[in-house]
């Protein structure tokens, strides 16, 4: 367990050793602001609602931030050979996977926490733009966290399958995009197929959270994706032994 945390800590810190973490956080916040206030038109809606913030945050995380953060996790270590150094330390393969996962999820969480600046600045201090219902905001953040957990696990799994960061980025990007929008495609699909598409879509599973509703089905959905992808990443890492 201690090894897991050591790896997670190193991974998390290494993001801040390069400009990546700063760029991701600053750009993420700026883009979120632009979309929330100008594209969505927060002022025109004239309601103290953060629902759309969560929708945009999920979009940004899925399509840009998570792929950028997870692309190098294992792919780069495989390419440079540092993985050999890491794995031949007294550490289990599962601890390597979990450590890397927690390190990346840590950075995403920091970004999520940073977005909390928006509701706090707008509704608590220094401005009071209206009475904000805190329940849905907290539920929305829980949803985003679960969503990030699943997305990072998917990115880690894909990163474990290739030695190229670029490939890892694009595959993760496409998978997350499809997972996000599969419900929209499902609109056109007939009957049962459409239902399945809605059930596995990220967006559909996030809407409840943004409205303040914590449904166990949605929670289990995100947690199962996380678990499944972590196990697959572990297997993929282990497969080096037999190839």
């Amino acid at each position, binding site marked *: 367990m201690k090894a897991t945390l*050591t790896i997670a800590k190193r991974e998390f810190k290494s993001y801040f050793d390069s400009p990546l973490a700063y760029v991701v956080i600053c750009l993420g916040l700026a883009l979120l602001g632009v979309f929330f206030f100008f594209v969505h038109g927060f002022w025109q809606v004239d309601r103290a609602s953060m629902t759309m913030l969560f929708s945009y945050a999920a979009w940004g995380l899925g399509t840009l931030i998570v792929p950028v953060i997870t692309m190098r996790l294992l792919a780069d270590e495989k390419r440079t050979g540092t993985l050999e150094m890491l794995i031949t330390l007294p550490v289990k393969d599962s601890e390597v996977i979990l450590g890397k996962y927690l390190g990346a999820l840590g950075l995403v969480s920091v970004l999520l926490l940073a977005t909390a600046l928006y509701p706090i600045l707008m509704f608590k201090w220094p401005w009071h733009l209206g009475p904000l219902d805190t329940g849905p905001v907290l539920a929305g953040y829980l949803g985003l966290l679960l969503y990030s957990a699943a997305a990072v696990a998917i990115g880690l799994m894909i990163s474990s399958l290739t030695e190229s960061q670029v490939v890892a980025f694009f595959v993760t990007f496409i998978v997350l995009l499809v997972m996000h929008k599969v419900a929209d495609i499902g609109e056109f699909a007939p009957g049962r197929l459409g239902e399945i598409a809605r059930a596995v879509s990220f967006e559909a599973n996030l809407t409840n959270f943004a409205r303040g509703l914590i449904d166990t089905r949605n929670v289990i959905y995100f947690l199962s994706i996380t678990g499944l992808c972590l196990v697959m990443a572990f297997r993929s890492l282990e497969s080096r032994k037999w190839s």
Partner: protein
Amino acid sequence: MSTDVMIHASNLTKMFGSLAALDRVSFDVHKGEVVGFLGPNGAGKSTTMRILTCFISPSSGTAKIHGHDVFESPLEVRQKLGYLPQRAPLYGEMSVWEYLRFSADMRQIDMGTFKTRLRKVVEVCGLAQVLGKDIRTLSHGYRQRVGLGQALIHDPPILILDEPTSDLDPNEKAEVINYIREIGKERTVLLSTHNLAEVEAACARAIIVSKGRVVADGTLDDIRAKAGNVRYLVTVDEKNAMTGKAPTATVVRDALAGLAKVQSVSETPSDDKAHAFELAADKESDIRPEIYRLAVEKGWILLELRRDAKTLGDVFRDLTRGESLHARGLADRDDEDEDEDEEEDDTDDEADDDGGDDEEQDDRESDAGDSKSKSGSSDKKKKD
């Protein structure tokens, strides 16, 4: 298995698809030994080391480190090991201190122990100047030292070093070899390389692998002896003689070939004042007195007479020769053809400047080939 066997490999086989990277490799390394693991590139050195460090698993066979099976208890194995993979892959964004601290953390070493260990490691590996620097800014030599440092931070009884001197300049090589000698005083070390001089400098024993098989295993003297014969270098003055006329090369050659126990004589290149010959004879006897007597009897002026064993390099080339021929698709030809092919290959080597890791080895090979070809051609001239 006696208790002082630190590394035990038995019938290790590793298949990559249908290619056997390792074919029943077995050896033991005992406590306190520094063993050179030699072989051409692709012979299976790294594969063996990766199996020993539990990075990959063998297709069949077993290996034990410090009595722990690599398959059943990989964590215990890794606790006992310090490992430096090829090219020392390190996290470039970390400083040397951070990296060593990370390795220590991963090995559950507390801060107090770390500080005392660090002092030792910095001293042995010469890292005092670079502790605060980022690894990516360091030269190859320093990276190797940091790699050695992380392998030593937990004071392991066994060290496995995969080509610790590749990519280094000659000074750095010598330094790293010195460090390894220093480290090897109280530890068991398995060191892979294809640089024979290093093995001779640092190791008492060598294991030579070729095409995934162990082709020689023993002390350096044993391995040299395995090659069988010794050679004599004889140089006779061409212009002057003690009595009578100065000898021609053919006369000297025939007279030397007439000596008992001489297996072969070949002329080697020399300046125009002397005839130089290389004689091969079995290693049991010393024929220098006979050569001297012959020279006195004929009235030749003997400029040089030297007996030396085959170098480890010769042995290495003999043992692994099949592999390079195989790679060139020439494995089934007979000996005569081999020599010619080697000459051809030499020109390739010279043309090919980016020899990389193999440069030194290739140079030696081409040197040997050159002298051979020259002696061959001068032989022909004489016959003409």
